[in-house]
């Protein structure tokens, strides 16, 4: 969608500010947010494309707030949408029983999970329509859903640089809720 997240080429955000000796996290809640959300990716409670789509659908003013608040927003929305949490549980903070069919990851497996090769690469033998050096034009599309085609390239011409192989198309995968892969961890 043509949202606030699609920032390439926009004006008005000013100079880039850099923090000297920036820590990995700036607050305890950021640390917990990263650990929680990544745990749930590893448990395949949701996948990365649908998660990005949730972030893109945030109200622009909320999107521009603290970075890791986007993570918490997207994860919460997906847990509610998938029925892993009820609205009553989310609002009260009180769990009504345990979730079923969730394999929690063990702490000891975390280093290997973070070292594993995970991506959207597919094994299907799909012939490439274009080869390196071919001239192409990006489609000028404005879908209401997730796309990795940013506005600034739509309708533009360019040359194919490299054939990276066959990958899942995030635009369509974001519309599925399968617990299949996360491209993140697990």
């Amino acid at each position: 969608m043509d949202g606030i997240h699609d920032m390439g080429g926009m004006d008005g955000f000013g100079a880039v500010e850099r923090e000297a000796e920036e820590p990995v996290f700036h607050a305890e809640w950021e640390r917990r947010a990263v650990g929680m959300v990544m745990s749930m990716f590893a448990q395949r409670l949701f996948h990365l494309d649908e998660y990005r789509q949730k972030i893109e659908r945030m109200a622009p003013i909320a999107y521009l707030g603290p970075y890791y608040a986007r993570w918490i927003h997207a994860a919460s929305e997906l847990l509610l949408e998938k029925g892993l949490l009820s609205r009553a549980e989310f609002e009260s903070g009180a769990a009504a029983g345990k979730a079923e069919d969730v394999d929690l990851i063990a702490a000891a497996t975390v280093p290997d999970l973070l070292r594993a090769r995970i991506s959207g690469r597919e094994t299907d033998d799909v012939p490439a329509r274009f080869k390196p050096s071919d001239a192409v034009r990006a489609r000028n599309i404005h879908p209401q859903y997730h796309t990795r085609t940013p506005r600034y390239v739509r309708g533009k011409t360019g040359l194919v640089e490299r054939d990276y192989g066959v990958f899942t198309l995030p635009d369509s995968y974001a519309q599925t809720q399968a617990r299949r892969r996360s491209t993140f961890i697990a």
Partner: protein
Amino acid sequence: MTGDHDHTDPPSDEALRVKALESLLVDKGLINPDAVDAIIEQFETQIGPHNGAKVVARAWVDSAYRARLIDDAWPALQELDVGGVEASEVVVLENTEDVHNLVVCTLCSCYPWALLGLPPSWYKSPAYRSRAVKDPRALLAEFGLKIPTEREVRVWDSNADIRYLVLPERPAGTEDLSENDLAALVTRDAMVGIGLVSPSGD
């Protein structure tokens, strides 16, 4: 913004929200708090730019390694036991006297975590994401990096899967340094493309 350094401030909205959510997720059996701790520990102690720096230093001292790395990064990364989360489909971009490479993610914050750690705030900022693809030379000049006009600037916008690592030029005067000493000179900024590697490690 968060006020966490000032003990007289109440906790931020985010702090309260995250605390309540974590407690609910534990009670509901949706997360294991020990695994949460283990993930945080990895990002604070194991996963960072030193991983990418090892790769750069090896590429500088071993031209056959550099060729393998540029041709197909994953097997070359395995030789050094690095890569993984958000760095499973890595493309290495070699800076030369003719080309300077710069990495951005205009749509979100994609970044080669397993090689560089979690991205810094500036990389995720609207200012960087909006300007890197529009006027990269002016942006780099603000970072103190003036690229000569005859040198091409290539900006690489991360997609859903591909993660880029810039292979900076080896600075002159480092011929006598060991691979480990070279790795210590390589900065995160140089591997994203907003800086160069200095022979003094500045």
